[in-house]
């Protein structure tokens, strides 16, 4: 399976995502430069975290206009697999590939910490190796991670089972105390209607090795691989 990691000026988790696929997953991976319009035949695109174009206006608002995003959007609309992490999630909402928006954390500060997530939907290409309602630990590191959407959108997301991850406590309960950033309904990650584009604020690439304190994040990538090898790639 071949992965592509988009590099905007200001991306800073691009190297980590590349390393994750190359060294941990041991699959093919290439960088996709923001100014290019060539996807190099990749099977899955990762839009990584960072501060694309400095994020001075609003996180992700400039990146959506870059040449590579035209291709990414077209790829996603054709059903191509896209994983947006942190700034990547913000870019996907700004691009209209995912509904809603990410606003400043309730604390008004940058927050870097481990969070517990409940897997709300394991029937996606990204989460098939988790069990339904499994509690996993994946860290966050963001200043604008509060997920918001209008009521209609939110209801639809919930009704269609498109909330993939929710911040929870150790018992898997969804409480206000375990919501780190003020996201509506404790939402940490959502998927699009077709089920091929996932956006999430937590960073799975940061917890893919025991030496770094956990491997829960790796399973998003192994789910993708399994799904691909299970037929989607043929």
């Amino acid at each position, binding site marked *: 399976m071949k992965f592509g990691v988009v590099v905007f000026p200001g991306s800073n988790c691009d190297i980590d995502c590349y390393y994750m696929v190359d060294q941990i997953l041991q699959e093919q991976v290439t960088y996709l430069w923001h100014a290019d319009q060539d996807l190099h035949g990749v099977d899955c695109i990762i839009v990584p975290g960072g501060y694309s174009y400095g994020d001075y206006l609003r996180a992700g608002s400039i990146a959506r206009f870059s040449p590579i995003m035209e291709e990414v959007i077209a790829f996603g609309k054709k059903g191509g697999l896209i994983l947006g992490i942190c700034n990547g999630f913000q870019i996907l909402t700004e691009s209209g590939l995912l509904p809603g928006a990410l606003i400043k954390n309730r604390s008004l500060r*940058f927050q870097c910490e481990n969070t517990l997530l409940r897997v709300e939907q394991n029937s996606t290409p990204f989460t098939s190796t988790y069990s339904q309602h499994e509690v996993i630990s994946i860290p966050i590191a963001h200043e604008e991670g509060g997920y918001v959407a209008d009521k209609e959108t939110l209801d639809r997301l919930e009704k269609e089972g498109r909330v993939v991850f929710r911040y929870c406590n150790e018992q898997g309960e969804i409480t206000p105390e375990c919501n780190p950033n003020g996201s509506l309904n404790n939402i940490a990650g959502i998927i699009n209607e077709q089920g091929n584009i996932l956006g999430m604020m937590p960073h799975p690439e940061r917890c893919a090795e025991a030496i770094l304190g956990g491997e829960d994040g790796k399973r998003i990538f192994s789910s993708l691989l399994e799904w691909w090898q299970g037929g989607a790639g043929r």
Partner: protein
Amino acid sequence: MKEDFWREMGLSESEYELIKEILQREPNEVELGMFGVMWSEHCSYKNSRNVLKQFPTEAPWVLQGPGENAGVIDIGDGQAVAFKIESHNHPSAIEPYQGAATGVGGIIRDVFTMGARPIASLNSLRFGSLKSKKTQYLFSGVVSGIAGYGNCMGIPTVAGEVYFHPSYEDNCLVNAMSVGLMNHEDLAKGFANGPGNPVFIVGARTGRDGIHGATFASEELSEASEERRPAVQVGDPFMEKLLMEACLEVIKTGYVVGMQDMGAAGITSSACEMASRAGTGIEMDLAKVPRREEGMNAYEILLSESQERMLVVVQKGKEKEVHSIFAKWGLEAIVVGQVTADGMMMIKEGEEIVAQIPAEALTESCPRYDRESKEPEYLAQAQGYDLASLPEMEDYGKVLLTLLGTPTIASKEWVYSQYDYMVGTNTVVPPGSDAAVLRIKGHNKGIAMKVDGNSRYVYLDPYRGGKIVVAEAARNLVCSGAKPLAITDCLNFGNPEKPEIFWQFKQAVAGMSEACRVLETPVVGGNVSLYNETKGEAIYPTPVVGIVGLVEDLAHVTTLGFKQEEDIIILLGITKDELGASTYLSVIHGLEAGKTPEIDLEFEKQVQQATLELIKKGLVVSAHDCSEGGLAVALAECCMQGKIGADVALTESIRPSSILFGESQSRIVISINKSKIDSVLQQLKKLQVPYKVLGSVGGDSLNIAGSGWKVNVEVAEMEEKYREAIACLMKG
């Protein structure tokens, strides 16, 4: 020339006379401005250089010692680590967010200029009492400035220290450290070699910000300092990220002859320092310098401290290749001049010569001063304070909780959770332990790092305090499973023209040098920040040490938290009746007095080596050094991080407050699996390290039994105090 002009430049009359002698003529205003910044303490170290000569700077693993943008040490496998610490105190006192942010940006540039990719940031911060509104403003501004810059760069901020003390009320300290990783062959230096080679300015455009920042940094703060706000630069981390990627890419081509960032004194310092190191000159046309404002004159262009700019000397004929790499990253790279053979800084604006000075006159001819030094009067009285007459407390558990809730000791989670400490996916030991550990990808090894300082020790005995700063930093590394390799230092002191301050400075450096020699951690770079005074009041003398060490095998990585029921707790080292200079005295009795704890460096080395040896043999489950708050606070921290209690007996026949809260040096608390006890004790006897088996891990409270006294505190209660203290005060 009018007298007030050269005075305004921070020059003395004799310095002005010397300049005339060097030039054999009157300098013009531009030239005088260049001398003014280059001969400031900040750039020239004129008051400190003779003292700094004491530092040992060599070891077989040192690839680059002091004098370059950063020090570089070998870590094996053809890899090296570049690192340096630098102060940004005055700017942060005036404009906390930008002051701190640009401090981070400046030190990161120093490291990637050497050809290393920055992989970690650290910082050492000092403020006044956290109860004051002003401190809260400075503290939160500084922390968000560091976060804003470092997080955007994608460089994890992995360790630091924060102290609160009234002496920093009007003069906070912000020391930033950067650590980078490189292969030996990519080592780049700041040399302008090869006459005829083109000189590029790359990165951001030059504006009017930060003019005379270096001069500002070399004077005392006063009410008028507010007017210096324009001397504080504004940072753009996005620009710096691009600059870093482009510079690292261009270094890989091999076309770079020399490179230096434009920090203090901007174009002037980078150009003359690069020329002077290479024994060359540089000819430059200021009309070609890209600017962000119109109407800037030569003086302003030369002295601007606009951020995110580099001076790069490139092999002649490779201009196009270099230009295209910067263009790829959307950056300007403009040839503004060339290297010359005559040793002159020849600055033109179009056809007109605006300055003409021998490069070495700016960097080497600055007079060096051996300032008068005199032991301060406060010292004898403070050291001689009769501590024996102090009453003992009734409830030591309550004292322990009070200390845990003191901002200087309390958890710094409020701070480090604002820093992205994980980006880069190398952080094996995150903030909150004795030292941070990062793994080196592709190898089973890691590097450990830490910043440390204790100004109360230095205030009460600069020589001893200087030794302890280095010893404690090294001890922290050892507790993490690393062998300490080298240090970088940031020396924050008051006005060196005052004999008492200069005495503190000399004594502290002598102590640090001694410790560096014994512990074999040479100084490979650093920074001096003098004139940290407001309205004539100096800060406590504050030498800060940044230290880097090697974890040879990631299996050696050790953290401070107790891990498992029934593990045995052992204290290495000796607890003496030493309450002097302790946090306990300061917080509980409001006393900053007594003698700084004794330190025997050979003994320190023995304890450190024994700890590391036990760790390497896989015998140690947790390790933590005893520092502020003494043994009781150390044990409490081991419990809190491990979320488990402990039962210990402390039976020394000295006063309970000294046993619990005295800060005797060279002590490390370890815990071991009970099945390993014989083998550990045997080792310790063989290594001749004094130890005491204190008790065992277990339960959910910390129980300490002495002769006729005891402490019983629940771990949860300690944690609440410890974790909430800073957040509570900040909520105000």
